[in-house]
């Protein structure tokens, strides 16, 4: 369902972003001309296979690309400022306060030598003028919100005294405590048990919806995204292949790659009776340093033609098949031979 509370002026507007890594083996175009908008309060899913440059988009927004990587071109507009041009000091005041990030592995994201109370309060100490007492109060409140029992005592515990799921809750608490406008979650549940994944995704969704924070959810798990996101951006080899409203993408994917991703999700109907063979996308993600000319997906695509192997498809937008209510919503694809929509 489209959420009517989402405003139309974007909070974050990424335009033509290119983040390249200059390695000895050649230039790795991890992010190669990516554009998307995130509205205030919107949840956007950034989907793609491993090695598709998803995380690098997150780190580019945070200004945490380390050499040999560099933002080569494009702009990252956030509340009227271009983050790609800001200095380290300005970025530092934005990180953690305006834009927060959740990492993939909660086992390594927390510093083993400090109590979690210390690590939660650090964010507040960096970005607010609160007194030590107030910081402590807020930390307890936040831990309570993310579902950690007995926060007053747990505050004094070290990361190794928590389970993986609990640690990720702590990481979420650290990210959300300064009430950021945008939260970037980089594969936040990949390292966790399947049983805990859904819990944490629900928690994250609840946290961002309650506080009106926008969320960029980076994941390879299209199934998870389809349940949470308002918008989905599908990446392949550092480029956007399809972008649009979540329900539209799931119901009517037009790029063969997206179709392939959706078909490889097991359905509930598979469990009882009618056994469907789970389909997979043939082949592997190509070496990003030696991409084939034309469409990067062509070697794996059942619909590929001569045109696909020679010419880059351009991302083009068209209006969704909507129900007529609300503003027109756009569905963009980069494909020479898109799947036809069955109305």
């Amino acid at each position, binding site marked *: 369902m489209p959420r009517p509370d989402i405003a139309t002026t974007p909070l974050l507007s990424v335009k033509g972003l290119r983040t390249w890594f200059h390695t000895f083996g050649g230039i790795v175009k991890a992010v190669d001309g990516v554009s998307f908008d995130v509205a205030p309060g919107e949840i956007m899913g950034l989907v793609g296979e491993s090695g598709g440059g998803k995380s690098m988009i997150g780190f580019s927004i*945070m200004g945490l690309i380390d050499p040999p990587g560099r933002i080569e071109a494009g702009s990252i507009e956030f509340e009227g400022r271009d983050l790609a041009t800001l200095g380290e000091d300005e970025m*530092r005041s*934005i990180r*953690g306060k305006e834009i927060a990030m959740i*990492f993939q592995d909660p086992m390594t994201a927390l510093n083993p030598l400090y109590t979690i109370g210390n690590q939660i309060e650090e964010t507040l100490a960096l970005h607010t003028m609160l007194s030590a007492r107030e910081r402590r109060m807020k930390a307890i409140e936040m831990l309570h919100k993310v579902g950690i029992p007995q926060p007053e005592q747990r505050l004094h515990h*070290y990361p190794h005294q928590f389970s993986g799921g609990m640690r990720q809750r702590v990481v979420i608490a*650290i990210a959300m405590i300064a009430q950021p406008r945008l939260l970037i979650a980089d594969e936040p549940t990949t390292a966790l048990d399947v049983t805990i994944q859904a819990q944490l995704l629900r928690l994250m969704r609840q946290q961002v919806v309650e506080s009106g924070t926008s969320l960029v959810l980076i994941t390879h798990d299209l199934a998870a995204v389809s349940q949470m996101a308002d918008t989905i951006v599908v990446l392949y080899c550092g480029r956007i292949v399809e972008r649009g409203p979540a329900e539209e993408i799931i119901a009517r994917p037009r790029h063969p790659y997206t179709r392939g991703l959706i078909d490889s999700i097991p359905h509930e109907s598979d469990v009882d009776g009618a056994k469907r063979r789970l389909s997979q996308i043939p082949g592997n993600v190509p070496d990003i340093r030696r991409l084939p000319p034309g469409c990067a997906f062509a070697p794996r695509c059942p619909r590929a033609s001569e045109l696909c192997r020679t010419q880059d498809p351009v991302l083009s937008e068209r209006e969704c098949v909507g129900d007529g209510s609300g503003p027109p919503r756009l569905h963009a694809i980069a494909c020479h031979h898109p799947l036809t929509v069955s109305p």
Partner: protein
Amino acid sequence: MFGYMIKRLIQMVVVLWAVSVLVFVMMSFTGDPTFMMVPLDATDEQIAQARRILGLDESHLVQYWRFLSNMVQGDFGRSFVFRQPALTLILERLPATLEIVFLAMALALLVAIPLGVYAGANPGKPTSRAVMAGSLVGISLPGFWLGMVLIFVVAVKLQWLPSSGRGPTTEWFGLRVSFTSWEGFRHLILPAITLSIGTLAILMRIIRAEMVEVMKQDYIKFARAKGATAKGILFKHGLKNALIPLVTVFGLMLGDLIAFATLTETIFAWPGIGKLLVDSIYRGDRPVIVVYLMFVALMFVVVNFIVDVAYALIDPRIKIK
């Protein structure tokens, strides 16, 4: 914690006993100190009498037993040369050694930590490479050579600092120390620098190597994502994680410097325990050497204990058991 202390205490006794055996064996089979004590033209009778006075006429077992039981009672024997209890001699000289060693260690840490952290956090930069090259030079410089060069340049040519001796001392909690007066402190500087260079270089390389590893960790990137300052990232999140191996080496080096400041003390005529050891070896002053070696063994055991406690203080995952 209590069980740990008991274990450590037993361990200490065993180590000290083993050292006492080694020391006794080494002493007993490396020459007869009697000849150092008697006049060149002494008669056999005089020699035999000297032996009896020194207690060397009995079997090794009896000698060892007497040596051990005296030691347990705190009697380490008297210096052949000074006619004073050997322990008193060592304790008298100890403050002088501790003074230059502590100053040298403070100097080493003060320089090694910032440089090591910088070089570890920016491994590719030319300045870091220069720092690392410099540390190689520091490791390769022999202490005695550096000491002599410092004496020649700073003391003789420039005449900025005194070249030898301890200078005026004052009483400080019953210890004779130099650092309380400016003139005394001036005497400390050159020996301390000489002592610190090698330690400084090694500490710096360890800090750098650890920092390079630590800076790759997720929690560093997460700290950056929180908006932590460069200083906070390097020192709060980085350095503390790099400290564990540093503490180990620091402890060993501290013990090493106290025990074997010998060369530096000799060059600067510094009246510490190192110089006393060298003099005693020359004079065959056996009781002093024995006390010295026992003292060194005890000190290493204590330093190791402190290092273990420091681990637990730094890293909450380490429990003292």
